[in-house]
Structure formats: C-alpha cells, structure tokens
C-alpha cells in the first residue's frame, strides 16, 4: 500500500462528508474525529453509527449531516450493521448487481457502544473477518445520556454513575485495554490515534479502509461537557494525553506493534514524557484527585500509565 501523500492545503479541499449544521456541543472532540476520518475516504463509502452522540447530533429528523449513505439501527450492533452492509455489497457484486468496484464500509461507535454493549457484535464481526473499518470515538463515558461511566472511563474519573463521593472517589476500575483486545483478535490492522495528531489519524483511517479485513481505530476524542474543561482546549488536551503517555499512539499490522511518531519520540527521549498530573489538572472530572486524601489515586494512575507504557515499549521492540 503506497502511503497517501497530501499537503494540508490539499486536505482542506476534500469535501466534508460530515457537514456543518450538526448539533454537537461547541468544541466537540468526536465531531473533529468524524470529519477527519471521513476526509480520509478514498472512494465510495457507506457509514453506520451506533446510538450515541455522533448519531444523535448528525441526524435530528428531518436534518442530516451525512453526505454519504448512512444507517443507524440500535446501540449494541453497529459492528453487525457493518457486517450486513459489507456482506450485501460482496454478494451483490458477485451476482453482477453492484456498479462499484469497491465500497468502503465504516462503522462508528462511541466508547459505550464499543467497550460495553457493543463489544459482542464487534468481536463477532472481527472473528468473521468482514472487510470494514471500525472507528471507536472514545470520549470516555456515555456522554449522550449524560456522562455515565463506561468500560472506557479512566481510573479515578468522575462521572455521574461513578461520582467523586465521600466514600468512593470516582471510578475505581481501570480503562479496558480495548485496542489490545482487538489485536488479540488477530485482525489485520489495529491503531490508536487522536485528533491532535491529525495527519497520523488521517493516515491510519486511510490504512484501515485499505486493509482487507477488519480494521479497528481507537480515537481518543475529548469532550468539554463530560471532562469539564473550556471548549477551546479540546485539541490541547488530546495532545497532553499523548505527551503523558496516558494515550500512546501506535499501530499493529498483523499483530506487529509499532509506535507512531508522537509516541516514538517520547520513547527515545524519556525526558519528553510529562507526568500525568499535567493532564489530570486540566479537567474538572479529575479535580477531586487533587485533594490530599486522594493523592494516592494520582500515584496509582501514574503507576498504571507507566506499567502500560513499558508493556507497550516491549511489544514495540523498544526495551
């Protein structure tokens, strides 16, 4: 696969397939992710979303922000949606009833619809090897229903169902390593990305579409409402997640892990790795951790981040 080369100006000319007029909150990280991923489309494409923020904001009847064919059915089955579309395209082509050489199928799911309720369908679709790209836009909680905790919510975070109370200070469980789980499914391509490293995200989305078989792209997409920060800081916070190694960027082609440039430079020069506090202090959902009685949680978070970082470095062949 030749790498797609483009200048920022070229990129700016690509038409928006996720158009303006959608009702996402001001400063919405997932909306940026949607726009960028869809700009990476290389030809005819059909998309599908699980129930969630991006589905709701883009299709408040009778308005639609989608300039490509799109379907939404339910919450837990976007991967099955994609499986049905992909299968239909394959068989219609085989029977000579499809006018396209190839149509890319993209499934968009939030963390709720992917880590938790949607996992079964995702795992099944991955096992069956359907040719589609699954994009997880991870805002780390069930945001559309009002900031409830999901399997993707990080350790210590406040959510409405893991509130920072007197007895229990936020979420006590760790974030499920969803991308690693998808690597364990032995699918051809898995990658993590975020909106601040836009070129990395776009290239990975393109790669995910090009790969034959299931591809999984985990995109960290900050949410000003749920993470409690000023709307202008969305991209900045995504960048900090990478710089603190809370959300390292990597890809795994056929199970071979490789660090992406933004994380690779930190691996090679560990002074660049910022302490987790730099990230945590920017968001209101972690504010309670800065009370003296909760400081140990910050330490625990740092330890977890370091542990996963070391594990990742080993997988990437960097001692």
């Amino acid at each position, binding site marked *: 696969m030749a790498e797609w080369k483009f200048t920022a100006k070229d990129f700016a000319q690509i038409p928006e397939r996720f158009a303006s007029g959608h009702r996402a909150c001001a400063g919405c990280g997932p909306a940026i992710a949607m726009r960028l991923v869809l700009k990476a489309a290389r030809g005819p494409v*059909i998309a599908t979303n699980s129930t969630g923020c991006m589905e709701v904001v883009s299709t408040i009847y009778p308005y639609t922000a989608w300039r490509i064919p799109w379907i939404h059915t339910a919450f837990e089955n976007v991967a099955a949606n994609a499986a049905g579309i992909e299968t239909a395209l394959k068989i219609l082509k085989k029977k000579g009833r499809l006018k396209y050489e190839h149509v890319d199928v993209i499934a968009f799911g939030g963390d709720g619809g992917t880590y938790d309720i949607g996992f*079964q369908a995702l795992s099944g679709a991955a096992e069956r090897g359907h040719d589609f790209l699954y994009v997880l836009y991870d805002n780390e909680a069930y945001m559309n229903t009002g900031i409830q905790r999901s399997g993707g919510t990080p350790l210590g975070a406040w959510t409405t169902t893991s509130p920072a109370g007197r007895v229990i200070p936020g979420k006590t469980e760790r974030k499920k390593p969803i991308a690693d789980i998808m690597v364990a499914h032995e699918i051809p391509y898995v990658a993590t990305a975020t909106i601040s490293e836009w070129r990395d995200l776009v290239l990975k989305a393109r790669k995910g579409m090009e790969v034959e078989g299931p591809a999984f792209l985990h995109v960290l997409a900050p949410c000003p409402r749920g993470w409690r920060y000023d709307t202008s800081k969305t991209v900045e916070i995504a960048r900090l997640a990478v710089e603190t190694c809370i959300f390292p960027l990597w890809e795994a082609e056929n199970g071979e892990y490789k660090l992406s440039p933004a994380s690779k430079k930190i691996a090679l020069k560990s002074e660049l790795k910022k302490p987790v506090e730099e990230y945590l202090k920017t968001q209101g959902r972690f504010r309670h951790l800065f009370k003296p009685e909760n400081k140990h949680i910050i330490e625990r978070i740092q330890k977890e981040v370091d542990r996963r970082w070391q594990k990742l470095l080993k997988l990437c062949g960097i001692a």
Partner: protein
Amino acid sequence: MAKIAQKVIALSGDEAVAYAVKQCDVDVVAAYPITPQTIIVERFSEYVANGEVDTAFICVESEHSALTCCLTAAATGARAFTATASAGLALMHEVLGVTSGCRAPVVMAIVNRALSAPINIHCDHSDSMAERDMGWIHIYAENSQEAYDSIIQAFRIAEHPDVLLPTLVGLDGFVLSHTLENVNVLPDDAVKGFVGERKFPLVRNHEGKMIPFKLDPENPLTIGPLDLYDYYFEHKRQQEEAMKKAYEVIRQVHEEYAELSGRRYGNGLVEPYRLEDAEIAVVCIGSTAGTVKTVVDELRGKGVKAGLLRIRVFRPLPVQDIIQWLSDKKAVGVMDRACSFGGNGGPLFHEIRHALYDLPNRPPVTNYIYGLGGRDTSPHLIHKVYQDLQRIAETGRVEQLVSFIGLRE
C-alpha cells in the same frame, strides 16, 4: 387444478423452509442456531457449501446480530432471510421494531417455541405473540407444505412497494419443524420467476432528489434518524398504513401463487373449514388446525354442525374475514397456544373478541388455552372444546370464559 408440474419430496418443516429459501434467490442469510430452527440453517449451509445457492451465509454471534445483519443487508439492496425461535426471537425483539421502522423487507421463519423460564424447547406461540405489536406481518402455517408456500409468498409480500414491511412465517416447533411430510415443491425457475428481483421505490433524500430507497454512494440517504415528538407519530402512522395495504397485497399474492401451484389456503388471510353452515366454531392458529379438522369431520359425521376458522395471517388482523365467518355462529371457541398472563385470556382470544365486538348480535366467545410448552393436544381434548361450545350454543350461558385444557390441576 395445478398449473405447473411439481415434484414431491419428503421434507420436514425446517427442511421445507430451507428449500424454499434456496429457490428464492436470497442474497444474504444470517444464522444463529436455536432449537427447533437449527435444521433450517444447517440445511441451508449445506446448500451454500455445495454451491447450490448464490447466497452469502453469515454465522453471526447472536440472534440480535442475525436480524441486524439482515436489516442492513436489505437496506443495502440485498434480499435477506433469517430464522429463529423462542429466546432468540425475544433477544432480537428490539431489532424487530427497528426493521419495521426502517421498512426493510426481511423475511424470517419463526419455529414457534415456548419462552423461558423454565426453559422449554417445545411448541407454543408465546414467542411470536410477544412480537405482535412490532410492525411485522405474521403468517402462520398449518403444515410443512404451507410453510414452504408461505416463505415464497413472504418475499413478494414484504418487498411490495405498497407494503415494505418485514414478514415472519411461523411454523410449529417439532410438530412441523421436525416431522417429515410429503411436500410439493415448485421448479426452481418457477419460484425465481414468482419472487422476481427486488424493486426499490423512490424516496426524497436530503438533496431534494427522488432516489431509490437503498444505501448507494451515488445517491446518498440517511436511514434511522433521531425523531423527536414532532415526527415519530407520523412515521408510525406510515407503518400502520403499510399494514392496511398489506391485507390486499397478501390476498393478491396468495391468489397468484394459488394459480401457479394449485394450492390455496382460504383467501390467504383466513382458512374456513366446513364453516358455511356451522353453528359452533373453533378458531386457532397453526398445526393444531389439522387436528381440529379431523375432529370437525368426526362431529359432522354425527350430524353436529361444527366448523373451524384457521387464522393464517394474524398481522394485519383480518377483521372483516373474522366478522364474515363468525358473526352468525352460536358459539365460538378460540384456542390459544399462548397465555397473556393477567390478561384474562390469550392473545388470539382478545383479538377475535375485539373483531366481533361491534356486531349487534355477537356470538359468545370463549377461550381455551392449550398446548403450552409442547403439551400434546389430542382430538379428545378438542372434542371437549366442541362439547363446551355445544352447551353454550344450547343454553346461551358461558360457565367459564377462559379455560386451560390438557392441564393437570
């Protein structure tokens, strides 16, 4: 008089369904196994593995995904089929509503089986009765022959541009699904000619263009939006309109098929049996109708004016046919193979009573809940029903509105 020559093959109900699907040029079959539907998907996967069909077969990881895959495949332009029963149908309940709301013409065979708990693998109608209100067309077969015929008709009905509603064909678990019957099958090209190719009605998209109703990059459209309280009601009214139109489409498709195959089931909606001059009538769905017909014949032999109204299509409810055949009866007994707990009777009973309610002289209608969880329903039991109906006809008095028959007290 059959128009076309047919072969006779010994097939169980499940095998007959698989055979029909094979002939209908189905593009996508999604399958998850559940007793007693397993033979449908097993037989079909053999056809696929042997290259006898040009169909993509997806072994999904749950029934919920089975129907989802069929729904989105249909939305993409493919003809899609799946089959399930009992708990599997219950699991995909949510998606039934979505499929109907998205107007995807999926056909699904339901091998009627009891719902849990306790878990039971045998026949009753509780599984599909629980899906009454989901906007699907319900067709119930009395025997494997009818299951075969109904699957073929179902594609035509579901895909009709005036209808565009998903359709289920119910066949009794084990009683029909697993027992061999001589089934007359049409030649392959006759079936293919009958079902034809999918046609796509035009809809207005967000570009203001009238485009074919399917997911196609050349003509993008958005299916499955968020409706607020300003439009949801109108969308539901559209589904109701489709149900209204379905009545006539079902009748016509049945008629056309009857000319082709030589087989008819009443007018396609209901099948009356010795009902014209009957005084007492039983109403039921499914294979038990076969047993009732035997009992009717026995009673007629003794001079009792007994008859049967078999409900073939439950949704849309054929109200006018129910009125036409039952209004002048002296007593009507509705046999329900499902119980609506706390509802003072079973679902079919409720609906038959409702259909007859506005008549100036409506007949007494009583309910006999039977056969739950595969409880055997012998002619002896049905004789008891007719005896009760006779008593009611003679005395004009109903002793017990709702009874459970064949139950050990």
